[in-house]
């Protein structure tokens, strides 16, 4: 039983590796951690396109936040 589970685990790990390669090929910018989160969410039935839209939005927002903060600190230093 234990070996069966571990075999399954390894298979899953392998799948994730493959998926990471695909992700890299497609230049999605996801790392292993975010990819595994996405996989879990997809498995839980979240619509993939909605998910990708969210990810894009989040990236945009955090990018602009960072820019703002940098400007702020720059102003601060001036």
């Amino acid at each position: 039983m234990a070996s069966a589970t571990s075999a399954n685990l390894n298979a899953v790990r392998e799948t994730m590796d493959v998926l990471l390669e695909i992700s890299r090929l497609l230049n999605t910018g996801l790392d292993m951690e975010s990819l595994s989160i996405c996989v879990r969410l997809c498995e839980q039935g979240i619509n993939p396109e909605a998910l990708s839209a969210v990810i894009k939005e989040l990236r945009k927002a955090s990018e602009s936040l960072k820019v703002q903060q940098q400007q702020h600190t720059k102003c601060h230093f001036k």
Partner: protein
Amino acid sequence: MAHWSTFDKETEKETKKLIKCISGMEDEEDQNFQLALKFTWSNFRFHRFLDVDSHKVERSISGIYEKLMVHSDLRKAESWMRLTDEFLNSPLPQTDGKKTDAHYSVLSMLFSLSGSPSNNDFTERPRIKEAEAEDCFDWAKYLMEGEDIDNGLYPDTPVWSEDESEDDDSQRPISREDSGIQLDRTPPEDQDNTNKTVPVTWTVGEPGARAWLEQHVVTPYWVTHSPRFPHSLHLHSNLLNVWDQHLYNTDPLYLPEEKAFVTETQVIRETLWLFSGVKKHFIFQQHDGKVSVRNDVVVTHLTSNCLRSVLEYIAVYGQAVFRLQRFIDEVTGCSSEPCPPGSLSSHNSKKGSEPPFRTYQAFVWALNKYFTSFKEELTTIERELICNDETMTLSAVLERLGPHLSQIKVLHKVFCTGVADVPPATPNVVRASHLLNTLYKAIIEYDSVGEASEQAVALLFSLWTETVRPYLEIVDEWIVHGHLFDPAKEFIIQRNKDVPVNHRDFWYATYTLYSVSETVESEEKLNDSASGSSGGDQSSSSRQLTMVSFLKPVLKQIIMAGKSMQLLRNLHCTEAESSEKSSRDAERKDLYTLFLESVQSRLRSQETSPTNTVTDDQATRRSLIKMQSIVAQHLEMENVHDPLLAINFARLYLEQSDFQERFSGGDFIVDRSSQSVTCQTFELTLRSCLYPHIERRYIECCGNLMKTLKKDYKLLEYLQAMRNYFLLEAGDAMYDFYTAIFNKVQEKESWQQPSFLNVQLQEAVGQRYPEDSNRLSVFLENMDPSRKKHPVNNLEVLTLSYKVPWPVDIVISSECQKIYNQVFLLLLQIKWAKYSLDTLRFSGNVSEDAEVTRKLQEAPAEDVKLKEPVHQQIHRMCLLRVKLMHFVNSLHNYIMTRILHSTGLEFQHQVQEAKDLDQLIKIHYRYLATIHDRCLLREKVSFVKEAIMKVLNLVLIFSDRWQAGFGAWKIESIDKMESDFKNCHMFLVTILNKAVCRGSFPHLESLALSLMAGFEQC
């Protein structure tokens, strides 16, 4: 959201992770995080996308393949086809089967995320093939990854590398300047047997060198990617790896993180350093005053969560220590050792112009004392740790430090509420009293817990006694030398600079009492103009926890003693007795010393007291046994055989005696050393150790002041003088003065000239009391014309003034003189009425009478009928005169003897007994109020006074008519005078009788009686 399924919760968890992962926000409470979460949820739930269509995805896959082919990216295209195929045929973590919706869904998500796959460089990374990995995965290798298994002679000790080169030395970061381990700058040891370098010049051949190194050099665990130390392979010391493996096995998506491995000894030492106030650590990190635990630190024999929880527990205390230490540094102005409070003023050079805030300094001094002992303990532990003689674990160390840690917790709590929570702009007086109050309250609070917190109480008590020192010194300085020395303005009473001592307002307006309201934390000024004593009382009644609680019971005494002393000092400064004073001062103990001595003697006396408790105990037990037998007898007598009752009785007594034993036994055990004060004794301690000293000092000071005022400044003589002149007790002198005025009035000459009045006064007084003559003077005031209706009011322009010299004018103020003057005017009016009645000459009337008779006899017979009324008129005038005289004399007697004299006697008696100046002032005021009241001068009884004034006025009119002679009399005017008098008289009698019957004014009785007697005879 209460009906959320676990599935939803799972999704929520994942969503949060996703947001954290992508946006990098860690704080879930962050507003942005919450926004992102909301946004994500709404997108997940309410989107317009269609479900995944596997055909569409397949088409996309082949589309991308074609595109890559078109771009002649053959390798990529080939990889793409292979990878997607492989993926679609592989299992997913939670989904069984191949080419499921989940697969397509994942792919579809990647498609929509993809950014121009044809443009980026991609080379497929070789992957370990599943089949190979599955069978021969080397777990040992995985677990031992990065570890070095030494096969040498000493498997447990680091291996000495013989390759030496100097070049690596400069690159090794030295990150721990202040934690102590870099004291010897010998380079850390390297464990790798590869060609890593050790820049040491010893040769291995020397036998001492290796041993020395093994003992003294610590692995540079603080360096990133530092080499791992070797450790046992026993299961117990590899719990972390076991746990990791378990996680790896159960969770396919588990990613092992980069870890920094340390040993428990290192953790212990870092803990000790943290507690001793070192600011830079590896395991603990500080960000703006917050101590946190580094995330990636692990020890091999504990899971990271377990270690983390222990370390976080330590970090809390570390933070407390850090904050306290920083406060100590702030107050002392530097990081060097603070000095005792006495010598601090010179030490505190940083703040320069600002005078030192002594209460905080004393508090810091006490804290520092505690920390010194704490650090000693830490050093002992560390020394033992270094010696390596016995096993030491983190939990053992924590247990050993347990009492200290709980004390630090108490200290930190007190510090937070007493010091840290005070807003920065708060004045020192509020800070100081707040701190003292906090300590005081904390002591009481812990005290009430009983023996459970004996340690805390002892600590707080010692802290409090230290912190209270500046206050007691200020009090001491004030009540002994009369000098309120408080440069930092921290004492609750402060001197108003603009009032000089030799000013008559000194007593009232010199000091401001600051009272701090606990609830609103705002400062209120209570000017003790309502005299020091009442000021204190007011505040204590309205606000419970104001000011410095421990001083409240003796605040009045302190204020009185301080003011008295200052006054006394100023009185004495002319006299040369300072040398004597200073010599006495040298051997005098200050208040603080006295307090400490009393505390110690009190605690010692309690130590010896148990003998008493034993006897007490025996007595109570005996009485209990006796009671029991009585009850038993009683039960027998009544023939009650109730075994249950008997058992209960027995148990009751048993319990009680048991309780007795326990109680007294507990008392024996309690170690009452000088530092430990237990159970409810704190307030008692204060009451018996501090207050008596202040009380004694108060009695002494005020007694001295009273003596000086009475003896050297003739206070009593001045009070007598006031009575002499204002209340006409110096009858002869004042008689001369006022008869001169009355004569003038009778002769219809103008008397309202200041020069005339003053000359008369000087003459009258100067003969008998030459020393007072130049103090007394008379002024004329402009009367307001509306009141100038009656002749009797003419006198009201007079103002008698007596110049009271400085220290005495605190008691006899100008307000007092005003009241004196009012009474004086009343007396003068009565005297005037009396005088004008007394001086009416019968003889004149009689001779005129005779003349009239003669005239009448000569007159024709028809005039005879007029004769009868004239005789009647004379008779009626005489009768009226006697009645008026009776009235005026009654009034005069009442006021002069019943009121002024007897009240004066009472007053003299009270003055003799007055303990302090405030009391004397109060007595004097009360005396004045009494005579003012009893002379019916109060506003409330003004109608009585009006009636009296009417009668007095009538008297003056009457005497005027009398003087004018018979011819001027008219029967109507006599009628009018009679009826007026009768009315007034009746009114007064009724009013006074009512008052007397009510019993509220016993002193009025004599007046009422005599007036009534006069009335009945009418």
